[in-house]
């Protein structure tokens, strides 16, 4: 017979005896140096891993049961951001469709830049506006959660986060003002919002873990 496949050899090593060719494979292996060596390796790996003791996990159940009965508060804002992100993703999808390039006449780069800036489809602008609004709404929810958790944070840490978030909000505002109707820049603003949301989410997660 031809050499068995790697999966066939593995099935033999793992003791998965469902393969009807098992006897044939064993016979082949007995006379084939390469396959015999491979099977020896597979059995050795399996034996090394398999001889480790099983683990008791019954003591972990009460923690699971408690969380099933009383879900952590985190799920509330995690759910909200999931919804907000979903809406944002939908808006981004609309945007993607709106921005799909059609055939353009050949123009010089400078002319092209002017053309793109001046010929934005109103639907594209509307999609950008909606996406930004989605991000702003999600940010409001997360900022509200941060305000709730803030008194429990270390004052110095809270002060540093306040500064970071204020700076991020200011940068977003400035970028948005500069972007005007430039699609490419506004896409970068959306990236900025996404980064801001991620920072807020991480902050909240860490705060809740530090103060359950």
């Amino acid at each position, binding site marked *: 017979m031809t050499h068995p496949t790697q999966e066939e050899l593995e099935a033999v090593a793992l003791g998965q005896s469902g393969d009807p060719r098992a006897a044939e494979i064993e016979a082949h292996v007995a006379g084939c140096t390469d396959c015999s060596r491979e099977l020896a390796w597979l059995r050795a790996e399996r034996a090394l891993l398999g*001889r*480790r003791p*099983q683990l008791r996990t*019954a003591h*972990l159940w009460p923690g699971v049961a408690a969380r099933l009965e009383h879900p952590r508060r985190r799920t509330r804002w995690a759910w909200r951001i999931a919804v907000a992100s979903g809406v944002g993703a939908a808006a981004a999808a609309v945007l993607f469709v709106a921005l799909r390039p059609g055939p353009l006449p050949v123009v010089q780069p400078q002319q092209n830049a002017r053309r793109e800036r001046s010929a934005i489809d109103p639907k594209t602008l509307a999609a950008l506006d909606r996406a930004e609004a989605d991000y702003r709404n999600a940010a409001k929810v997360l900022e509200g959660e941060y305000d709730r958790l803030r008194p429990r944070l270390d004052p110095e840490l809270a002060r540093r986060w306040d500064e970071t978030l204020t700076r991020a909000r200011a940068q977003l505002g400035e970028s948005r003002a500069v972007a005007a109707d430039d699609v490419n820049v506004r896409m970068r603003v959306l990236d900025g919002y996404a980064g801001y949301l991620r920072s807020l989410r991480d902050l909240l997660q860490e705060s809740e873990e530090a103060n359950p």
Partner: protein
Amino acid sequence: MCAASLPGEVLGAPDRDSDEELLSRARAGDPEAFRVIFDREAPGVRRFLGDLLRDDAGADEGTQETFVRAHRRLGTLEQTGKLQGWLFGIARMVFLEQIRRKRRESPMPEPAEDFSRTDCGPSPEAMLLSAESDRMLEGALADLDVERRSALLMRIDHGLGYGEIAAAMGWSLQKVKNEIHRARLQLRARLAGYLGEGAR
């Protein structure tokens, strides 16, 4: 909190309920059915996470998180026969989130690959007889890229099929095969280095 060892523990009974039946009851809100699923599957999930994280407390926490999420998503499991792979897929996501959090605190360098010793013949007996084999194995696994390690462990420690691993990892079947092959070469190169003349 650390999982206690139980040598030779036999999991499950011959006349146990099928996964399908248990899942059906759990989906209908029967807490006892989910408890049975936990009892059956948690040791494997805990071991998988322990091998990935090498941190008992983190693996315990990750196991709990995996089952909390699994409970929430019971309705999304389409093929009940794939329960273990599905749980490992959730455990992998939990693990990735944990290491992302850790990396923010202390970035870990990726290990370099060295397959130069994989042509050595194996000497399984030498491996099994070696008193240091457990530590050796642990070190060899630790050197693998975490994703590659996940796939290899699902295959050789937990016996998942390639298709189940592909679903759990979100990879193509070909990628699963490639990654497991590379993981094996790397693991063997490392193990062969400890086995002296017997391995060559």
